[in-house]
């Protein structure tokens, strides 16, 4: 137990930090929306490039 206990105390943060508490005013985005938008945007740019050439 001793080893695992210490793991929880260390906070290994990424470059951007996200906290548990968030303001309720902030608009929420579904993670699926992010991925879907990214894929659609990539496809859109590819189509544009293909059409223009």
């Amino acid at each position, binding site marked *: 137990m001793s080893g695992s206990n210490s793991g929880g105390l260390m906070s290994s943060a*990424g470059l951007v930090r*996200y906290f548990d508490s*968030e303001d309720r005013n*902030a608009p929420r985005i579904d993670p699926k929306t992010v991925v879907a938008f*990214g894929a659609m945007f990539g496809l859109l740019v590819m189509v544009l490039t293909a059409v223009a050439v």
Partner: protein
Amino acid sequence: MSWKETAAPVLTRMPTVARPEGHVPFRRKLTWTAGVLVLYFFLTNVLIFGLAGTGSDAFGQFRTILAGGQGSILQLGIGPIVTASIVLQLLGGANLLGLDTSDPRDQALYQGLQKLLVVVMIFLTGIPLVFLGNFLPASGQIASSLGVSTFAMQCLIFTQIAIGGLLILFMDEVISKWGVGSGVGLFIVAGVSQRLVGGFIGWSGLTNQTGFFEAWFNIITGGVETPPLFSADGIQFLLGSGGGQLLALVTTLLIFGIVVYAESVRVEIPLSHAKVRGARGRFPVKLIYASVLPMILVRALQANIQFLGRILRSQLGEGMPDWLGVYQQTQQGFVPTGGLFYYFAPIYTPQDWVNALGTNTLDILIRIGVDLTFMVIGGAIFAVFWVETSGMGPDATAKQIQNSGMQIPGFRKSPKVMEKVLARYIPQVTVIGGALVGLLAVAANMLGTIGTVSGTGLLLTVSITYKLYEEIAEEQLMEMHPMMRQVFGSAD
């Protein structure tokens, strides 16, 4: 009225990715991580619409650690996130923000500020990239076929890379909340690993790059002309990057070994539970306590200085004073060969210094000196700031240990006393660790690495992968024993 009240309405309304409700099973976490990673690789292969050619890479040799891809809609990579983080670390480290990150209200502000700064940096990096310096030239042909001006085309290019920058930010958030590790870390590892694999198995016929294995295949089969192997030339050939790349291989493996070893070097502070007798624990103060991430901030600072130099060169042209920078046009765009910006340019590869050491000894020594100063002192300073702002400092750690009901045996059970004990180790270890990592990064660059992934890239990759491994092990433990979630303090 403090800036907090003024800025609160904006900062608390920055869009965020929804948090999962309840525990996310490990398998789902892996699916999210893999999904975002696939999307990331897809987007680095989507070229910007309306570009004439691919332009020259403004990040130059820093591309490995800043992720993204030159000429793709992820042109900016994690650059804006890193630059925003530098500003935040400096402000937070110097305690100018006045935000208490243990207070939920301030946490929301901190998070909003972080996001706002990234958006500002997307503009500050993107605008010069597109509108100044010809890094991303707009295609006049496409502009005329669409019947719009070149300026409109540039705006379109800027919009694409700005959306790409925002996507990186939100993909990071998705991974941080729904996946394993952090997006930024994953993107760095992905980019460096790709190069590392390319550096090993690259085949000049296919990838324009002579990988390690091809080089040796050629040496053994006599495909290349080799000098007599037991002469000075022969040994140099086997070690050097144009020949056997043995030095790069040894450096790469050595960095791997050193980082994994350094992860296990630690000062352990014994803990015992205040109420439950016999429950003991240890708090490890690792040699690289602040992790290797602060190093990317120092490198990004250097990258931004070089970026500034190239923008100045493109604006001033030949009129740029010699003391400021003398630039030479190469395949990779303008490269400084003299002046202030030359001395500020870090050593990227052995070619940067080995051959020139005999002729421009003083110049090279100054440049190495500046690079070392930057990385060692900068590394230590940013490590200290990092520990302060990410809640790993003596005071925050003492509070955390106190809250978990533990105490240091033989000392009074007061956070102040505990803080004093921790303050004997944490600051010293942080400074030594930060400086050591800086030194390693410079040394690795000077000796060269396989696939020229750069010392910093390699250090970051090994250290991030190690952390990821620890996190996955922790996750699996939690899957097996739901009770463990309480121990790890995960929200569910």
